């Protein structure tokens, strides 16, 4: 009886420790290993980073932590990849709702994302957003 219980425990512990850990992808490493800083913040091709403008709070330092938390200018929240790491979704209690952006470029020297945000007063004409970031 004792042997049986001990064997079961050994097997259980072995299994628990043998579970493979997730390996980091290249995109994940690139995004999280660099502290980014906002470069251009455009809405419909026009700078929207000024006081009271749509992208004002994205201005500043952008950090994607490995644990999924992050700082996006003035927003503190979470991020995750979507659609095979072609999109990144940003969420924060201060943001009106989670924002899905398309990763246009991600290199050691540049991060460019775009998205289209619904225009509540004119649903047929959403706002096209383009944000670029450089390493800090």
């Amino acid at each position, binding site marked *: *009886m004792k042997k*049986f*219980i001990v064997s*079961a425990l050994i097997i*259980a512990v072995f*299994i*628990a420790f043998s*579970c*493979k850990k997730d390996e980091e992808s290249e995109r994940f490493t690139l995004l999280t290993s660099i502290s980014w800083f906002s470069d251009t913040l455009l809405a419909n091709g026009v700078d929207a980073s000024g006081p009271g403008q749509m992208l004002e709070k994205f201005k500043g330092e952008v950090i994607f932590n490995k*644990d999924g*938390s992050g700082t996006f200018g003035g927003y503190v929240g*979470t991020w*995750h*990849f*979507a*659609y095979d790491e072609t*999109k990144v*979704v940003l*969420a924060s*209690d201060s943001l*009106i*709702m*989670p*924002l*899905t952006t*398309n990763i246009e470029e991600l290199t050691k020297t540049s991060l460019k994302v775009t*998205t*289209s*945000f*619904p225009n*509540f007063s004119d649903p047929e004409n*959403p706002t096209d957003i383009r944000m670029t970031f450089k390493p800090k």
Partner: protein
Amino acid sequence: MMRSILTLFLVLIFLNASAQDNSVFIYGRVFDAENKTPLVGANIIYGRNQGSISDTKGNYSINLSPSLLNLTFQYVGYVSEVKHLNLNSGDTIQLNIGLIPAVNEIDQIVISANKVEQKLSDLTVSMTLIKAYSPGNNHISDPQELIAKTPGIEVLDGQASIRGGSGFSYGAGSRVMALIDGLPVIAADAGNIKWQFLPLENLSQIEIIKGASSVLYGSSALNGVINFRTAEAGIEPRTKFFVESGFFDQPSNKDWKWWDTPRVFTNASLSHLQKFGNTDLGIAATFAFDNGYRKLNDEKLGRFSLRLSHKSEKLEGLKYGLNLNSGMTQKIDFVLWENAITGALKHSESTATKLNGTFYAIDPFISFRRNKNTNHDLRMRLQATSNRFPDDEQTNSDAITYYTEYQLQHKLSHFATMNIGFSENYSEVLSNFYGDHQTLNLAGFSQFDMEVKKNVKLVAGVRLEQNIQDGNPDELVPIFRTGINYKLAGYTFLRASFGQGYRYPSIAEKFASTRLGTVKIYPNPDIQPESGWNSEIGIKQGLMIGSLNGMIDLAAFYSQNKNMIEYVFGQYYDPVSDSYDLGFQAWNSENSRVYGTEFEFQLNQSIGMFTNSFRGGYMFMYPVEYKKDDSETEFLKYRRKHSANLEWIIRLGKFDMGLNLYAKSKIMKIDKVFLGELTREDIMPGFYDYWLVNNKGYFLSDLVLGFRKSEQWKVSLAVKNLFNTEYMGRPGDVLPHRNISLRLSGIF
């Protein structure tokens, strides 16, 4: 035959004798009120220890002098019944008495906690029992309503939450596993519970485990288990039926009334249990027609079940059989209201879609008890569901599940039992809505129950589970549980337990892509499994004081989950149209913890001619999100801090009365989309203002009055939501206002 003739002969002799000497003759039968089995050797007492006892068929007879007296019917393990009689000379009275079992609440036998039969008092986890008579006593035909009225449980639009473990996720996924006779009945596509097809007929009892139960029941049992156990045939055949009809009164907000003709509902059920030699048969059918108190929210339902089992004459210990549960429904599920001013009980036409649903589950099984120490069980389930939307065929879906489970139970010694098993669960979903997908779940589990010391019971178990979706295997997941039960005194039991839970995302959460009126649902193929653990300490105290019999239970619980899956409103990418839009998507959004206490009680007492039964509970919980640094941030969505209920049933002779009281505090947090300035009016007009004023919690009461014309026939009247309280479940879901129903039921 000879015995019947002899009894009749004796009755005639007594009749003759009583006619001659003006004495009184009382005769009849004593039996179990629930299954009609005769009670042999029951005491029928009057005066000072004078009386008679029932024979092998439960029959008795007494010859008395004319007088005013109390006749007491007693049987070990049953609630005594007293009949107050005014006897006149020459009277001949037939008194058939059905006694109600008075099993000590803590000695009741349950099976779900460890997949072996155990006394309720010996468990290491919290369990709530719903007795077979409860649905009938309370005019409940919908299993969802029955569970929602249980202490410590909330059901929001079909989504069950035990001790705050779940919120509301728009009908996809369930952290509570529903079982019929121990086998899972979660839908393969949406991963939800198909409440309307769960059986309330031929019920033995419903066992609810509160806490992570994934070791024995796997994915979806993260938060607990609800096991609907069906009854076996007794010695005597039993047929039960009821017909019920009712209507909805006017809502308290008169502006919400939209109908000219009464909104009525009708339910009917017939069930039968019988033994034929070594073969048990159980058969049941139920029909329900509900006009609905909401416009475009009606339902027609039919449910049929069959239970067939046979004990082999040739090989002792061999038992095999087949169970069938099936149903059909035609309904329109409620999604969003029209507006808060005049349209809260009108389903928004933009989301009203007709659904024709079918369900069946066929369960062949074979078990072999080799000797007193070893038991083999092989059980299978073929389950199929079909959702047909005549006006929106794009959202049709079919799902089929093949489930097999083998379990070996072996008594290793007089103090240790081993339970090992394997299961596979293969599901196939064919749908435009979800896409076509296959999921395979493979698992092995092992558990040991030990009495390590006198009065100390220990349980420890492990499960290994792997999910393979569309050919892509997920990682192998080990899950552990352990618990201890210590019998401190005769009726006092302490318990402590720890259990891990794990839930693989449903196909709906990963792949559903649709639009419900203004609400768009986005797929999230990257969604990850959620996991967590639960622990509790508790004390159960049995009570046997004079005629008082019952138990009280106090538990403190703590649970923690990570990667909790929730639907979040946001701006998402739609791969079909290659564009961005607003809608809901399943997310691994929360790390959560819920802690609190729960108190439950069940008390039965006979005082003179009154029989009282009290059941109820109170739960306090504190459900919060937490961050990596362990700081708690906000309340979890769709949870309440306080909930309480009380059920009181009182019986006096042929009359009984049931009073149910429920109280719940306000919902602490809901999705931002319903409150945000930019979105709230587009989603649900008027909801924001309504919520600000009315999200205060609520108090409800139901009243049921019953009259037993005889042991076979009963008429009862129920008034649910007696004070016509206006209250809401998830946003926009105004729950039923006052409704009145009349039920005729019989048992033969």
